[in-house]
C-alpha cells in the first residue's frame, strides 16, 4: 500500500484542518502518514493543498501524483486534476462530466441536513474521504470528538453526524467499488515537523533566548517558544532582523545560550552581525529556513538556494559551522550539536532548513532528543587570576567568561582587539595573532564535522549525492533504481561547512541533486574533490524534490 491523497481548496476553506483530522485518523489506525502542505502567500483564496502519503511503513517523502483528490471547489479540482493518476478517485461537491471516477457529494447540503449547518461541510468531506480509502468511520469520529471537544458537546455531535453522513453516502455511492476496510495496525508514531522538534531540542540544549522577526517559513520557531512557556526560553519579536541577531548576540555575551531564526532575506540583514559574532567570538545559533529567492521570491515555497550564502555570509574572515538536517530526528540531533559546537568553539553556527522541513509532518517510530554533551563551556572564574577575554591559547579558544559572570571584567569588542579586548591597531603582532587565532578554529572545526551518510556504494555505477532535506526522496529514487536492476548508491551530507573529508567513488557516475539552479553544493564538492561533476540535477520551481523528479531527470 502506498496511497497519495491530495486535499485541495482555497486558502481559508479549512483544507489543513481536514488534512490533520484524516492524518490523525490514519495514525490512530496504526498507519504512518507523511503530510506536506502547499499554499500561496495569501490569507484567503488561491490554491492550497495538503497532501497525505500513507503506507504500512513510513515513507516520509513526497509523491507528486495523487491516487485520490478531494477538492472543495471546482477551481481547485481543475488546478489539481493533472496530478491524478489514471484510475484515481475524485471527491468533490460538483457533478462533473469529465471521464473520471468521480464521487460528487454536495458537502454543504449534506452538512445542513445532518449536522444542522453548512459549517460542517468539511466534516462531511472528511467522512467521505475515509469511506473512499477504507478507513473505519470510528477513527474519524474519535478524532473529530477530540478536536472539537473544547467547543462543546453540540459542536462535537454536529461534526460527527455530518461526517457519518458523508461516510455513509460515499459508501453507498461507491457500491462495489468501495475498498475493503483497512486492518488496524499496532505501530505508534511521532507525527511531527522538523520545526516543531527544533524548539524542543534547543531548550534541551540549554537555549534560553530567541529574538526573531516574523518571516515565512521560519516564524514557527519563535512562535513555539512563545506558546510553550514551560520551555523557559525568553522570546522577543524584534523590530527587524538586525535587532534580532544583535539581541541574541548580547544575550549570549552575557552567558545565555541564544538563537535567532529567519529566512534568506532576513538573514541578508543579519550578515553584519554574523561577522560580529565571528569577531567577538560569541556563540550564536542562526536558523535559516530557506525559500526560493532572489528578493521576496516565493515566500511559501521551498528551496535550497542559500547554501553558499550561509557559507560565505559576513564581511571579513571568520570560522562558522553550517548544518543542514534531513528530517525531524536529524533536526533534533543537529540543533543540540549546533548549540554545543557554537559554545565550544565560540562561533556562529547556522542551521539550514527549508519550507519543506518547516511545514511537512513526518511519521517516525520515535524522536530522540540527545542530551547536551556539556551544559556550558563558560570558564570557571575561580580558576582565573588576571582575565583577558581573547587570551592567546594553543588551540585558539580563549577561556570565556560572560559579561557579569564574576568580578572579572569582560571586555568584548568588534574592533580588532588585544587579548584584553581593547581596540588595537598593532599591525605587526596583535592583528596577525588574532587572525591566526580565529582561523585556527576553522581548522579544528574540520576535525569535528561529521562525514556524509554513505550507502550501497560498493560496486555502484551511479552515486546520488544530496544534502539536507532531500535525503528520503533521494533514498526512494535509489531504491526504485536498484529494484529495476541498476547499481545505485547514495551519499548524503548534513554537515556542510567546513566541508568534511570527501572520498567520492571513482567508478561511479556522480549526480548531485539539490534545490537550486546553479548547483551550489556540486560546486563546493568540485572544489574540494578536485574533480568535475557532470551530473547536476537542480530543482528551482519551489516544489520539494521527490523521487519521481529525480528518476525523470536521470531518464
Amino acid at each position, binding site marked *: 500500500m502506498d496511497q497519495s491523497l491530495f486535499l485541495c481548496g482555497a486558502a481559508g476553506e479549512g483544507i489543513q484542518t481536514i488534512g490533520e483530522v484524516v492524518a490523525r485518523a490514519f495514525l490512530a489506525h496504526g498507519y504512518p502518514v507523511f503530510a506536506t502542505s502547499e499554499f500561496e502567500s495569501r490569507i484567503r483564496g488561491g490554491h492550497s493543498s495538503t497532501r497525505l502519503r500513507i503506507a504500512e511503513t513510513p515513507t516520509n517523502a513526497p509523491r507528486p501524483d495523487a491516487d485520490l483528490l478531494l477538492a472543495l471547489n471546482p477551481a481547485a479540482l481543475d488546478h489539481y486534476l493533472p496530478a491524478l493518476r489514471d484510475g484515481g478517485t475524485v471527491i468533490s461537491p460538483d457533478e462533473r462530466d469529465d471521464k473520471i471516477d468521480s464521487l460528487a457529494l454536495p458537502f454543504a447540503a449534506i452538512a445542513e441536513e445532518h449536522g444542522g449547518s453548512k459549517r460542517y461541510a468539511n466534516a462531511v468531506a472528511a467522512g467521505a474521504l475515509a469511506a473512499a480509502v477504507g478507513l473505519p468511520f470510528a477513527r474519524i469520529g474519535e478524532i473529530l470528538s477530540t478536536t472539537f471537544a473544547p467547543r462543546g458537546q453540540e459542536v462535537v455531535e454536529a461534526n460527527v453526524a455530518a461526517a457519518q453522513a458523508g461516510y455513509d453516502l460515499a459508501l453507498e455511492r461507491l457500491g462495489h467499488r468501495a475498498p475493503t476496510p483497512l486492518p*488496524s495496525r499496532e505501530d505508534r508514531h511521532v507525527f511531527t515537523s522538523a520545526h516543531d522538534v527544533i524548539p524542543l531540542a534547543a531548550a*534541551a540544549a540549554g537555549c534560553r533566548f530567541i529574538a526573531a522577526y516574523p518571516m515565512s517559513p521560519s516564524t514557527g520557531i519563535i512562535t513555539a517558544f512563545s506558546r510553550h512557556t514551560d520551555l523557559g526560553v*525568553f522570546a522577543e519579536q524584534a523590530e527587524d532582523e538586525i535587532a534580532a541577531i544583535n539581541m541574541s548576540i548580547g544575550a549570549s555575551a552575557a552567558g545565555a545560550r541564544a538563537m535567532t531564526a529567519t529566512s534568506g532575506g532576513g538573514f541578508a540583514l543579519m550578515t553584519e552581525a554574523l561577522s560580529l559574532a565571528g569577531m567577538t567570538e560569541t556563540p550564536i545559533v542562526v536558523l535559516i529556513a530557506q525559500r526560493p529567492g532572489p528578493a521576496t521570491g516565493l515566500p511559501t515555497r521551498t528551496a535550497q538556494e542559500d547554501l553558499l550564502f550561509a557559507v560565505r555570509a559576513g564581511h571579513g574572515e571568520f570560522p562558522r559551522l553550517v548544518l543542514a538536517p534531513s528530517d525531524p530526528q536529524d533536526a533534533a540531533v543537529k540543533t543540540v550539536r549546533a548549540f554545543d559546537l557554537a559554545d565550544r568553539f565560540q562561533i556562529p553556527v547556522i542551521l539550514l532548513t527549508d519550507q519543506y522541513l518547516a511545514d511537512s509532518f513526518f511519521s517516525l517510530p520515535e524522536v530522540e532528543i540527545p542530551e547536551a554533551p556539556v551544559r556550558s563551556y563558560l570558564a570557571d572564574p575561580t580558576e582565573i587570576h588576571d582575565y583577558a577575554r581573547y587570551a592567546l591559547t594553543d588551540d585558539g579558544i580563549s577561556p570565556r567568561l560572560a*559579561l557579569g559572570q564574576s568580578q572579572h571584567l569582560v571586555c568584548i569588542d568588534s574592533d580588532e582587539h588585544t587579548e584584553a579586548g581593547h581596540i588595537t591597531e598593532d599591525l605587526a603582532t596583535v592583528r596577525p595573532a588574532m587572525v591566526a587565532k580565529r582561523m585556527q578554529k576553522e581548522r579544528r572545526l574540520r576535525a569535528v564535522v561529521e562525514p556524509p551518510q554513505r550507502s550501497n556504494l560498493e560496486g555502484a555505477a551511479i552515486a546520488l549525492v544530496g544534502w539536507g532535506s532531500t535525503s528520503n526522496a533521494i533514498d526512494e529514487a535509489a531504491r526504485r533504481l536498484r529494484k529495476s536492476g541498476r547499481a545505485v548508491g547514495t551519499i548524503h551530507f548534513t554537515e556542510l561547512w567546513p566541508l568534511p573529508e570527501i572520498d567520492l567513488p571513482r567508478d561511479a557516475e556522480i549526480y548531485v541533486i539539490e534545490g537550486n539552479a546553479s548547483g551550489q553544493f556540486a560546486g563546493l564538492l568540485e572544489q574540494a574533490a578536485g574533480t568535475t561533476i557532470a551530473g547536476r540535477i537542480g530543482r528551482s520551481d519551489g516544489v520539494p524534490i521527490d523521487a519521481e523528479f529525480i528518476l525523470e531527470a536521470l531518464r
Partner: protein
Amino acid sequence: MTTSDAYRSDVENQWCPGCPNFGILTALKRALVSLDLAPHEVCLVSGIGQAAKLPHYLNGHVFNGLHGRSIPAALGIHVANPSLKILVTSGDGCLFGEGGNHFLHTLRRNPDITVLAHDNQIYALTKGQGSPTTRRGTKTRLQFDGVEVDPSQMLATAIVHGCTFVARGFAGDLDGLSDLIARAVSHRGLSLVDILQPCITWGAHPVDWYRERVVPIPADHDPTDRNRAIDLALEAPERFPVGVLYETTPRETFASSYRERIGDRPLHRLPPIDRTVIDRHLENMTIRPKSQEESP
C-alpha cells in the same frame, strides 16, 4: 565603598586632546562612584564612533558592538543578566541615525537601562558629515551648502513614546551631568540622557556657542508635566534647557513577565530544563493506535 580609583583604566585614550568627551567620562565615573557601584556591577554597551570608545576608558564590563546596534545588544545582555547596571553610551549618529529604528522600538519596550547620547551634532570619526541632530543650514564636509533638513527631536520623541526619564546634560557642566547620570541610572525603566558635547574638531560651533545657549530648566518646572517637557525639548536647537525634562512613575519594564516566571538569576545560572517537560511535548506529538490505547 567604591572609589574613583576603581574605575581608573590605563587604556590609551584616542580622543582629541580637550574633547568634551573627557568631561562626560569624568561625570560618568563620578556618578557610578556616587551610586557606590563596583565596576563588575556595571556593563557599558556601545556602538561605533568616538563616543562609543568610552567603555574602553574606564573599568567595567564592556560590549563594544556594531555601529547603530548598541541598544539591541544591551537588551540581550539585560535579559540574560538583570543584575548588571547597563549603560549604553554612543553618539547621536550611532543611536539616532544608524540605530534609529532600535531606539524608537526600545522606547516602547522600556528596558531598565540607561542611554547616554553623546550629542555633538556631527559625525566626527568619519570626519565631519551631518548627523541626525545637525542644525539646518550647518555647512559640513559633506553638506557643503548646508544641511537641508531639520534635526531630529529625539528627546520629544522619547517622551511621546513613554520613556519615563528624559534629561539633557551638558559636557561642560560636570556637577550637573554627573547628578543627571546618577538619577538616570537609579530610575527604574529606560532613562535617556542626551548630552551636548561640542565637537572641537569638526563641530560647527565652539564650546562658547553652546554655553550661551545652555540654560537651566526653570526651577518651577514640574517634571511630570508631559506637555511642558515636550515644549522644553523642542526649544533645541535654538536653546538647550538642561536638567531633567521629564520624569514620571516607572511603568512595567522589558522582560518583567518572563522574569516573574523564571526568577532573577542570570540565565546561565539556571539549571538545565527538566527533561520531563521535553518528554511531555514529544508525547503530545505521539499518536498511538487506538488498539494500543484501549489495552492498559
